[in-house]
């Protein structure tokens, strides 16, 4: 996943939620989002970096993070026994 596309997507979704236009509201970025979504449907998402965060940050974690954290705990328990 290209960093520039991620940053542009962050900006684009924000602009749409504000009801504003965005320089990134382009067919190219739309196509990239559709392509990523299709790729995700074919396999597990990239959770790298998010796992550690899920374990350690205070507050309310989105469900995917909690699921990931629970999965890690289950795996660790399985490995340790």
């Amino acid at each position, binding site marked *: *996943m290209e*960093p520039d596309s*991620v*940053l542009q*997507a*962050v*900006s*684009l*979704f*924000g*602009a*749409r*939620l*504000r009801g504003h236009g965005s320089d990134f509201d382009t067919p190219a970025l*739309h196509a990239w*989002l*559709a392509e*990523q*979504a299709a*790729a*995700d449907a074919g396999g597990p*998402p*990239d*959770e790298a*970096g*998010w796992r*550690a*965060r*899920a*374990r*350690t*940050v*205070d*507050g*309310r*974690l*989105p*469900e*995917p*993070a*909690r699921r990931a*954290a629970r999965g890690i705990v289950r795996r660790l328990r399985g490995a340790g026994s």
Partner: protein
Amino acid sequence: MSDVVFLKPDFGVQGGFELLMDRCRAALVERGIEVSVETFRAHEAPDHLAGLPLPRSLWFRHPEYFSYLANVERVDALRIDPGTVVVTTQPPTYLLDHPRVVALTYHQARVFYELSEAYIASGYSPSALHREATAQVRLIDRLRLPATHTWLAGSAEVARRLAATWDVAADVFQANAQEPPDREVAEQYDPAGPALCVSRHAWPKRTELAALAGICDTAGRTELVGGGGRQPYVEALAARFGGDPAGAAAATDELIWLNRGDPAAVGGGGTVPDRVRVRGHLDRADVVDAFRRASVVVAPAHREDYGLTVLEAFAFGRPVIVCRDGGGLVELVEGTDAGLVVEPRPQAIADAVASLRDDPERARAMAERAFTVATELEARDDIAVLVDAVERAGAGVPAGGTVAR
């Protein structure tokens, strides 16, 4: 139709805020006000956002950001009778556009506001990505903030944040969210007892500071009570500096808490000395026993919204040590003569703990004062502010006007 609707995102967890909300609801019901709860599932990643596909892999690049945006859309989709008073609760319910909103606010989306830079410094998100996300969330909030009838801030700290970021004038609604004062425990005070830290091990609760303070305080004992994902990190840190109090005193913020809590990153071996006990999660009865033994409670969190830890310590008649950057914790301690405010450094906390142990009369006086403060807080009609706001919003009287009774 209910008189009042509490709008509460369902994050799939039950914590302090949920208990507080239950208490507010019960108090309104006692006053003859009919109350219901409107909720929405706030913890799921949608397939689409703002009319575009939202790839799961993109979501994982910044879950807090995309989760916030998804919940803004969910709040947008709500249709609540305009004749009902709505008490909004957690982010982003305060963005609800409705003519009778009482925005009960304990915090904004914190990692995009006062914790934004610490979040980056801790390595939880790449700098450019989080700065862009922060800018977007702040723009969304500013542009969408509705003409809310009344803002109620859970503490003066939160009221200051609302004023500084949104030019909002909020009344302070300081609820009694702690257990009632426990005279039996309060009367069993021993100034020679261990220092106690009761907190989840989570960022930015900064329990690492309490553990390292225990290392620095070579003549004292320290207990840490609470579970949480950073507990292995706290233990690794305490072990690394177990035989090196000078090293604990000199540890950088980056090593102590501005990090992602990976115990493997601590380095070094070592063992946790007996005088520092990291006990993990305990049943309530054991927590109460820990308070019973404690001479002082250390509450080292960074920029707390409120200060439940302080209120709990006071309810058990225990003085409290908080850090200068503790936010709502400081607010509850300052001016009470029941606690000390120190720099957020292990040695500063250790010195404060030792100063009370070495002056038992002073420690006893502070402990008695703590219990008195708890008793005084308990005696307040803390819910009156909320009831008044709800009545004004229901009657269409501007905040601060007169309500016919």
